[in-house]
Structures are given as C-alpha cells and as structure tokens.
C-alpha cells in the first residue's frame, strides 16, 4: 500500500471523513468512561476535597494544548520543507482546537487555583507562558485571515508557528526553571506518579478522550479547508454529491 497516496487532498478527503466519525465516537465513549471514573469511582481527596476533580479536564487540556502545538509545528515544518499543501491544511485545521484546549487549561486552572491557592490568576512562569501559547494560536489564526493568497499564508503561518514552538519547552519546564505558584509535575515518564492509581486512571482516560476529540475535530475541519481551498479543482466536484460526503 502506498501511504503517500493520502498526501493528496483528493485521496485524503473521504478517508478523513471516515476516520473523523470513528474517532469522534471513541472520544465520546472515553469521555463517558473517564467522567464515570472521575466522579463516581475516584474518592474525595483528603487535602483538596472535591475541588481536585477539576484535574480530569485541566491536565488533559493542558497536555493537549502543548501537544497540538507541536503537531502543528510538525505539519508546518513539513509544509515549508516539502511545499506540501495538505500539510499546511493540517496545521491550519489544528490551530482553533489548540486554542480551545489552551483556553480550557487556563480557565479550569483559574477555577482550581481559587479554592486551593486563594487566587484565580498569578503572573507566574507556568501560567504566563500558557497564556502566551493562547496568543500564539490566536496570532496564527489572525495571520492566516490577514493574507488572501493561501500559499503565502501557508508559509507565513508556518514560520510563525515554528518560531513560537520555542514557547512549548518553556511551558513544560517552567515549574523547574522558575519558582512558580503552579506546582511541579505530578506525572513523570521516569518516576512513579505521585497520585492515587484510580485518579491517575481517570486522568489518562480523559487525556485519550481529548486526544481522539482533537483528531476528529481537526479532520472535519481539514475537510472544510479542502473544500474551501480546492474549489474549482476537478476532483472536488464528486465530493458533495448526495451519499458521498
């Protein structure tokens, strides 16, 4: 099987539709399972009471906000290096969902910070760099809208995305590099997690739900972008016939 076949929008369009539907349903099922674990099975925390239950959306959203940016940077690099238009479309499709995840991370962080730290917001390194991430997503979207020519917009957005990628390690390591109000990481790839197994399970299930949600939404959006941008290309005329899309 030749996988490069799917680097062409014409071949990718129907595949993206099928995948989006499958991933969307997986996301729904995982979210139900994750919320069930998070609210029905996981016990009340002995220090934080029930306020800690915000973790089941805060941490997955914060991880996704950084991860989506890195994927966006990957597609941007590919689109610059190979001049591949589908890669640029993928980067374009990810930006709004990345901004959404960043907003959720900031918002739920504020609503968690208030009862546990006594403040909704502090200008510490973790929160400030996450806010900058939100502005980077907004910047990429605004830049795209400001340039009429799609291919020029692709290049400009790719450069901005790649320059902004330096912020992601800053967010990730901010709790080590600076003295922050935000706590250090509880989960590490190299050490045992410092939290109860059932809470960790709920959080990971919600992370996979967020993952599948982001993929599904990005695939639906890339289909819209293909339709919007490839208008007039001969192959697209078959796409919107009844029963085909």
């Amino acid at each position, binding site marked *: 099987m030749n996988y490069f076949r799917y680097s062409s929008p014409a071949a990718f369009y129907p595949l993206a539709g099928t995948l989006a539907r499958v991933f969307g349903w997986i996301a729904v099922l995982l979210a139900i399972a994750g919320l069930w674990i998070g*609210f029905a099975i996981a016990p*009340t925390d002995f220090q934080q*009471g*029930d*306020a800690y*239950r*915000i973790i089941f*959306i*805060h941490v997955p*959203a914060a991880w996704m906000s950084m991860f989506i940016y890195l994927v966006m940077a990957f597609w941007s690099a590919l689109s610059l290096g190979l001049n591949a238009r589908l890669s640029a479309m993928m980067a374009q499709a990810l930006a*709004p*969902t990345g901004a*959404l995840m960043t*907003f*959720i991370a900031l*918002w*739920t962080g504020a*609503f*968690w910070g*208030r*009862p546990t730290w006594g403040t909704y917001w502090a200008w510490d390194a973790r929160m400030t760099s996450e806010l900058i991430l939100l502005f980077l997503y907004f910047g990429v979207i605004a830049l795209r809208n400001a340039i009429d020519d799609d291919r020029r917009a692709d290049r400009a957005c790719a450069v901005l995305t790649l320059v902004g990628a330096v912020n992601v390690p800053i967010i990730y390591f901010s709790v080590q590099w600076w003295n922050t109000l935000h706590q250090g990481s509880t989960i590490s790839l190299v050490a045992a997690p410092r939290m109860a197994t059932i809470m960790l399970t709920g959080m990971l299930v919600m992370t996979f739900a967020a993952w599948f*949600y982001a993929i599904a*939404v990005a695939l*639906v*959006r890339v*289909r*819209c972008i293909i*339709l*919007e941008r490839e*208008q*007039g290309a001969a192959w*697209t*005329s078959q*796409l*919107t016939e009844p029963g085909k*899309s």
Partner: protein
Amino acid sequence: MSEFLTMGGYGFYVWGAYGVTVLVIMIELVALRARRRAAESAHAKASAR
C-alpha cells in the same frame, strides 16, 4: 444527589470549570458544523455551474 451538586462546598469551582469546558466544546462543534455546511453548499453551487 445534592451532595454531588455541592461537591463538598466546591460546587461553584468544579461546575464552573466543567460547565465552561462543555460550553466552549459545544461552540466549537456548532461553528464547525456551520462551516462544513457553508463549504459544502458553496461547493455544490460552484460545481453546478
């Protein structure tokens, strides 16, 4: 049930966090559906010519 809603006194914060999350996800899904419909109908019009 009311115990569930009050979240041990943290109801405002827990439901404030979850509520807004659900709200923005709904906004994204509705906006995306509108965009898909607009793209499909613009495209159907263009290819009918």
